[in-house]
């Protein structure tokens, strides 16, 4: 009687090759990561002091029209500590926030003192609060101190609709007003306005308001920008 033959089935190896594959992949990844760290180490990006400021592209109002603005275009990558260069003051402001309304005067004073050494940038954001809706027309009016809204507390105008933007404290702000977005707010870890960050000319954060509660911006600019001139 003929015996039935079992079909020939190829069997796998006795050892588990997945361990070998894992070690091989680990070696490849280690070599790649080492090469990356040697050739171009990643920068720590964030709004904290010592970190490289988060870059963004957004529309900016310069007093005449809205144009594309890229933050890193203002950086001087060749700058070295103690050298000449234009520092960058970044202010997060909401046209409807009462503290931003009063800080506008401080910003005007700072600009009159430091505009030769510091580039001023205001990022106009909209906080998620009632009566904090602002459109481009309101941002333009806030910057330029032009007629927008009324002096009645009717929700129309700046400062949560309490004031006509033309009566904003301080002078006209002769610097770029950037159209903020939720991604910029998240990258810069903004929890409220006004919020100020001073950047070195090479884009690294030199002073963060949240990290310096005992020092105001005037003192910080004197200490950091004034002493470096």
């Amino acid at each position, binding site marked *: 009687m003929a015996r039935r033959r079992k079909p020939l089935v*190829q069997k796998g190896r006795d050892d588990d090759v997945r361990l070998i594959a894992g070690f*091989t992949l680990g070696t*490849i990844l280690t070599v*790649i990561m080492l090469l*990356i760290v040697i050739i171009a180490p990643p920068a720590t990006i964030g709004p904290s002091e010592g970190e490289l400021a988060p870059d963004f*592209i957004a529309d900016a109002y310069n007093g005449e029209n809205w144009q594309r603005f890229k933050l890193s275009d203002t950086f001087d*990558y060749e700058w070295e500590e103690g050298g000449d260069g234009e520092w960058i003051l970044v202010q997060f402001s909401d046209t409807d926030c009462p503290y931003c309304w009063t800080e506008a005067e401080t910003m005007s004073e700072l600009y009159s003192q430091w505009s030769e050494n510091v580039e001023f940038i205001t990022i106009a954001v909209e906080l998620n609060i009632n009566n904090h809706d602002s459109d481009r027309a309101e941002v333009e009016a806030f910057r330029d101190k032009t007629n927008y809204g009324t002096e009645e507390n009717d929700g129309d105008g700046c400062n949560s609709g309490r004031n006509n933007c033309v009566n904003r404290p301080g002078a006209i702000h002769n610097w770029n007003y950037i159209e903020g977005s939720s991604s910029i707010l998240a990258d810069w870890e903004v929890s409220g306005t006004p919020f100020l960050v001073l950047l070195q000319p090479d884009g690294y954060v030199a002073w963060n308001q949240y990290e310096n509660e005992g020092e105001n911006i005037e003192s910080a600019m004197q200490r950091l920008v004034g002493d470096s001139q």
Partner: protein
Amino acid sequence: MSEILTDPVLIIFILGLAISSYLMIVNNEKKTSMLLISSLSFAFVGITSSAYTYIIHNQMVVQGSTAFCSSEGIVQCGSVIGDPQWNNLFGVPWGIFGILSFSALIFLSLCLYLDRYAKWSEDYLNYAWWAGIAGLPFVALLVIIELTQVENAPHICPFCTIAHISLIGYVGSIYLLRNRRNIGKWSENEG
């Protein structure tokens, strides 16, 4: 444009893709092995090109420019990898995503190459297939971003394109491997 196409690193990557493609289409008695090597080769080109784009990304962020890729013309990296709005996904640079994704593909292909008869081999082949397929929408998204969204679009980032073609080639190799398995030609001697 002609300048970037004579970049020696880019030429090496293109050669890598050409060799991987040859291994995929060549017909010989060791076709299954050739396809496994082809998939590994595509994944290796993919992981190295992703790492290269990450190096360019780091240089663009820290120095504002890179010596490794042009920043002018249609075929360039500056406007694509240097665009802070589009050069990352949830803050993670695309190069890192590429490195991690191709790592997974290398692991799956390497396991299959080392032991194609293991009891898990069919599952791993399917994982490789679905992982590769899952990456294709991201390739489509990145091509759309290059062509329509970045500053002064359209642009084509050559090293990003190498990574995209690597993934497509990988999926092609795995497709042919699955076909061989389905028609019973998984063993070399059935080839």
